[in-house]
């Protein structure tokens, strides 16, 4: 389910960019950390599989939601791009039919995340070697 949702999010980024709105903090972090200086470049990066090793972390209720009749959940994922480990959180409001990128930054536990990614890469390598 979380990965299907991400696919839908990617399709929205590709086909209806006006319906995808990054929060100001996400825009600032994308610029500062990932050198993605415009909304267009941020969405293009997402569409073109820039978020490698995407891993679902969790989903949480959006705390700022003022309308209890319209529950909104924020989906958070971890990803990697080159040597940078990143964190993306987005949500979909079915009333406004807009996707919102809430966060786009490095995870707070990025050292642990990097270690995990390296271990995963090493495991894959040793698996490949044992297959050879």
């Amino acid at each position: 389910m979380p990965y299907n949702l991400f696919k839908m999010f990617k399709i929205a980024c590709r086909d209806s960019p006006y319906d995808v709105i990054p929060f100001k903090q996400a825009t600032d972090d994308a610029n500062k950390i990932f050198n993605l200086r415009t909304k267009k470049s941020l969405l293009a990066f997402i569409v073109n599989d820039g978020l490698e090793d995407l891993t679902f972390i969790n989903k949480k209720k959006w705390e700022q939601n003022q309308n209890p009749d319209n529950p909104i959940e924020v989906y958070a994922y971890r990803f990697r791009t080159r040597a940078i480990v990143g964190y993306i959180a987005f949500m979909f409001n079915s009333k406004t039919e807009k996707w919102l990128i809430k966060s786009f930054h490095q995870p707070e536990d990025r050292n642990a995340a990097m270690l995990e990614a390296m271990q995963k890469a090493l495991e894959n390598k040793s698996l490949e070697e044992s297959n050879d």
Partner: protein
Amino acid sequence: MTKKICPACGAEDIIKRKTPHLINEAFGGGREVDIVEDRCKVCGTVGDFFSQNDTLISEAIDQCKSLAVKNILQNFLSHAATSMSSMERALELPQRTLTKWKNGQTKPSAAGLALLKMLRIFPWLLDVAENKFDYEKGQRIHINEAMRELVSRMSFNDTLSSDLKISTSCNFVFNLTYDNSFQKGHNEHVPQEAIEGLSGATTMLVEQY
């Protein structure tokens, strides 16, 4: 006309304001643009709700990039003993490409600008191109430049015996110099063969290039 609503919560209570945003470009300086910031008074969401900033930011980035191209090429002409024709020849670019970029007659692609930035930081990449991107020669040029940079940053006085100092001249040839006391044979701790070996090793390494 459709009402403007907050994309996050659907409220209509939105404040629009302009805030300064700094665009920085390597070698192209900075430029400040006023971007739109929408804020929902109900849920507190802040962002560019109606995609109004991208054009402004892109234009500012383009202006900074044009300036970066000019600055990089001007720097090459001022500091490196090379002409634009020579650079074009080495890089196999059509003649007058760089002149046109510098004068703003044509704009380099993103890849072209990335190449210029690389050359600005690592001018020796031109030598690699000059050698037809031969892998071995490229590696030697790289190592040689790294050594030259390393030597220029190192204080050998800190790492070697005070009796022995190594200095380097700008044509990459290492010379061994001795203190007067060493030359007079007062220091017996460093054998002459070791000095000669060290001298030979460094000279050989450099001469390979």
